[in-house]
């Protein structure tokens, strides 16, 4: 690590690194650790804190404790024959992942690694609980143009919450209920939900996310007030506004040969290329978000192909990496696959086949229902969202919401249809 790199780490961490912490780690720990340190400037605050907790915890162990903690991992590495692998200890590669996954000890290795992380997290949890106790809000939006069946729409949620009827009449005009909820209330210019979240102590752009399969929600936020470049109130990600970014990525991936080394070469190139010119302004000016997008697209999961997959996987990754206080995930409509073209071809289907795109409304509705649930399930994997979070899945077309929240979240108790203004007021109070 060069001297310039030294300046970027907190003093404690730098000291641990200088004392040779990395030399004590098992080889299979190194790619992750080194990559996190390498990408330090692009990590979200929560991630930096996690890396700090892990490494300082490991640095705090004496030799015997360290040996005990890592014994199982070292033993499994020996059994797997890691030393004979072409295994990169510098960075995470597709080849690394492939080698690990094929080992008969892979699942044991995963469990052993998880034990180390659990031990570090347990140690960290004792040290820092303040931010974890803040109220959080997750809004999932199934837009009104997606056809839903009111008798089955909430079935997959398996009664973890309850249905609340909404009175959406006041949204009116071209504004959707979701847009209305995020809009600044009349006569209260500083009391929009985004304003409330960004006013929280220590809040950063990583604490507030809006992911939109279309562009309406993001653009309505951008249009709501003049925003200085680089001072956006939230992380604003619109699938449609990122079309240029996707096309560049798709082009590279499509050229990839079916070969591990070729995949790693493409992966490496895409990991280094300057993506700034491909980004809309709300992304271009925020380095951590640019890099988040790069990794999101590299990790697959349909983020390059379908807007709804982008929203779900993007939200899941935001929850994992940034632990935001406020997250909105709005799903949308995808087209039907065109005849004879495969979604496995990464090119833009509209470029491949001149037939007009046809919306798949029922299919998109099914996707959105499943993926909305997935966002909540992703959140509920983390302690931060288990007790202090209100999650509302808004079915705009049905004027219904499915609410999972602690009893003190007022909307959770409503028996009558709730107009949007009181709805927003409840959320505002929750976040305040």
């Amino acid at each position: 690590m060069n001297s310039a790199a030294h300046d970027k780490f907190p003093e404690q961490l730098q000291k641990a690194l200088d004392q040779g912490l990395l030399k004590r780690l098992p080889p299979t720990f190194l790619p992750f650790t080194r990559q996190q340190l390498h990408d330090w400037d692009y990590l979200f605050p929560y991630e930096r804190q996690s890396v700090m907790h892990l490494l300082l915890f490991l640095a705090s162990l004496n030799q015997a404790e360290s040996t005990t903690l890592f014994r199982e991992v070292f033993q499994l590495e020996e059994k797997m024959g890691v030393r004979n692998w072409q295994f990169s200890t510098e960075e995470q590669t597709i080849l690394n992942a492939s080698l690990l996954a094929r080992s008969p000890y892979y699942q044991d290795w995963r469990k052993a690694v998880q034990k180390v992380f659990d031990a570090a997290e347990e140690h960290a949890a004792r040290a820092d609980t303040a931010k974890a106790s803040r109220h959080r809000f997750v809004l999932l939006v199934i837009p009104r143009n997606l056809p839903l069946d009111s008798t089955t729409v909430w079935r997959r949620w398996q009664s973890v919450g309850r249905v609340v009827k909404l009175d959406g009449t006041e949204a009116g005009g071209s504004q959707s209920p979701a847009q209305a909820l995020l809009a600044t209330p009349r006569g209260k210019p500083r009391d929009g939900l985004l304003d409330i979240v960004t006013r929280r102590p220590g809040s950063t752009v990583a604490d507030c996310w809006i992911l939109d399969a279309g562009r309406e929600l993001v653009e309505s936020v951008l249009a709501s007030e003049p925003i200085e470049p680089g001072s956006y109130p939230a992380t604003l990600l619109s699938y449609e506004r990122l079309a240029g970014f996707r096309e560049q990525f798709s082009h590279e991936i499509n050229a990839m040969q079916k070969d591990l080394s070729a995949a790693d070469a493409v992966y490496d190139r895409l990991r280094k290329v300057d993506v700034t010119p491909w980004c809309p302004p709300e992304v271009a000016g925020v380095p951590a978000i640019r890099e988040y997008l790069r990794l999101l697209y590299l990790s697959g999961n349909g983020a390059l192909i379908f807007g709804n997959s982008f929203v779900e996987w993007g939200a899941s990754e935001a929850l994992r990496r940034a632990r935001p206080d406020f997250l909105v995930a709005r799903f949308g409509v995808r087209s039907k696959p065109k005849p004879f073209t495969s979604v496995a071809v990464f090119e833009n289907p509209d470029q491949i086949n001149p037939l007009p795109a046809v919306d798949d409304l029922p299919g998109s509705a099914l996707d959105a229902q499943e993926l909305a649930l997935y966002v909540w399930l992703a959140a509920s994997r983390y302690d931060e969202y288990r007790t202090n979070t209100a999650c509302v899945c808004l079915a705009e077309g049905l004027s219904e919401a499915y609410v999972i929240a602690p009893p003190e979240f007022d909307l959770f108790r409503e028996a009558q249809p709730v107009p949007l203004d009181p709805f927003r007021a409840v959320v505002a109070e929750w976040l305040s």
Partner: protein
Amino acid sequence: MSFRVCKQSGEVHLRVRVSAFVNTKPTAVAGWTTSTQALFRMANISHTVKDLSSRSHRGIVTALQFPARRTNLRPLASRSLKRRMSSQPRTGVVQLRGRFSVSVRSHGAYSMGVKEPYISRALAGCPGWPGDSSRRDFLSAAAAVLVGLGLPSTGVAGGGQHGTGGSGQRVVVVIFGGVRRAETFSPEGIENIPHLSGDMLRRALLFADTRNEGVTAHFNAISSILTGNWQRVDDWGKVAPATPTLFEFFRKQLRVAQSDTWMIASNKALTSLIGASSASQYGPSYGANVVFPKQLLVAAVVNALRAGRTGNLADRARIETELQAMLEAGNYEGLGWNVFDGVTNLDPRVRSTIESAISNFVRSGGPTSGDELTYMVSREVMRKFSPRLLVIIFSDVEVAHFGSYALHVAGIRTGDRLAYQVWRDIEADPEYKGKTTMFILPEFGRDPDGSATNGFFNHRGDSESTRSTWMMALGTAVEKPGVIERPVRHVDLCPTLAGLLGCPRMELQGIPISEFRV
């Protein structure tokens, strides 16, 4: 050319299959028929032409003036056979392609008790067939016919000969990609599999807990099913399975022709190396024919795109042209194919098979997914080659990796429908009906909702949802329909299939499943 004897309705039927380029003068064609006559005489059997059914002789006959008057042999149901003379005047080369069926009534020693039709074994040069004298004569004559034609005894184009070693049973294995029980055999999922849970289940054995205990990635999962050992090779298909596949066992142990073993797959994660292992004393010379129809489709789309012919992709007639152009380009290795060892020149029978499938695929007006094309090619291969071991892999369900649940479920419905179609094809084809067992199973499940690996998108987890699925079997080896609750493993399928096909017992991680009638 291939010969097959089977017991059917108190008669022994001889099926003569001609499929070859014969570099000879037209007069030699007559010699062929004469030799055929000799063959029958020497076998001490009389022969009569019998119109078995139109499905039995749907092959294409080109350049053959069948001298029925002289030989008492006629092409069956001649109206269903296309005849096309394609002599090349300069060299006098005659192309013979087609398939003929004749019925042979046995006399004397060629008894009705034939259980193991070893004809092709003899044709492949296997000595010591323990038959009676008339059978030995028959085989000698058959070999003489081949010599007379100047054809290699191993058949045409690396394996055109139809092997008959083993039990005479046929096996068709249909493998889906990753499918969870939740979307199939569960109260919520049952609506996605109306055929599997309806018509087929009634006559099937359903193994309700079928487990993939190996690597839950495509190449390794399929390799494990095919080899009976858990494979841990390169997931990208750059390395062949480490231990012999069932194709190799079957072909080597019973001297079965390559035309009898096929894998037809949609999955893009596979390569031709899936058809044979890297094991010593086995390998590609005993491997299966491997065809990836979806790769052809994708390559045609990409090719048209690169050449700026995107307009062709919106027009069914023109897409057929694009697909045909890919066939003509000849880069079958690039498509991952390995058909009769040929990667530059496609065997003419295979080519006509693929062309026919493409034509049906494009012109049917039906769905146009990769699995539909895979089914069409499989159907044509069944009709024209009647392989005794056919593995079909459908993978429309793998759209799940891109996160569309609706399209994933649509892929399950497509797989359900196509598997049922395959079963109906088996039931309707005399080559298969009554002597075929069909197995249907997913490669693995998918990750559970709420998992860190993003649920149904992937299949990386070590969960029941990922590892435990199901397997259905129906056909002749199924003694009694029912549901088997005890767990079976994917590696148990290979030795089970080997037993059904008549292969000797093998040392594998898998053990034969006991519920089948072998």
